[in-house]
C-alpha cells in the first residue's frame, strides 16, 4: 500500500517482523488494538484492511 518493507511496517507498529509476516500470510489474527493501529497507520477503516470471510 505504501511500498514499505515488512521491517519498516513492523517498526512503525512496534511489533516484530515475524508478526507482520504472520498477519500478512493469515497465520495470525491481530488483537483489536493492533488492528486499530494498523488501520490508523494506513488511514483506512479496519474492514477495508481485514477481510473476515473464510
Amino acid at each position: 500500500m505504501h511500498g514499505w518493507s515488512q521491517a519498516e511496517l513492523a517498526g512503525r507498529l512496534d511489533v516484530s517482523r515475524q508478526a507482520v509476516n504472520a498477519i500478512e500470510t493469515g497465520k495470525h489474527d491481530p488483537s483489536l488494538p493492533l488492528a486499530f493501529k494498523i488501520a490508523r497507520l494506513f488511514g483506512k477503516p479496519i474492514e477495508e484492511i481485514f477481510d473476515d470471510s473464510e
Partner: protein
Amino acid sequence: MTQNDMMTGEERLKRKTRRKWAIMGVLFVIGLVVGFTAARMEDIRGYDFAGPWPPEIALGILAAFLVTISIGSWLQHREMDDYERDINRKAAAFAAMVILVGYPVWFLLWKAGMVIEPVHWMIFIGGYIALYAGLLFYRYR
C-alpha cells in the same frame, strides 16, 4: 518530537531487536552461571542426585533463579508483541499438557512394572523440551 518519532520504522525495529537480544543475553549468562554452579555441586558429589547440597548454596541458586525468572519474564513480556505472546501462550499450554499427561502415564507404567520410577528432573527437562518444540512448531508451521 522524541528521538523515537524521528527514527524510521526499520531503525526502530533494529533498536527493539537489539534490546530483546540484550535481555536474552543477560538471562542466558545468568542461566549459565546458575546451571554451571548446580552442575559443579553434582560434580563434587559424584553425581549423587539424591544427596543434599550445602543449604547456603542451594538457597543462593534458588534466589538467583527466582529473581532472574521474575525480572526476566517481566522484561520479556514488555518487549513482546501480540503475535509472540500468542505463540508463547500456545507453546506453554502444550508443555503443560505434556507434563500433566506425561507424569501420570509414566507413573502408571511404573506401577505396572514396565518402566523405571518417574524421575523429577527428567519431567522438568521434558517440559522444557516440549516448550521449545511448541515454540518452533507454532512459529514455523
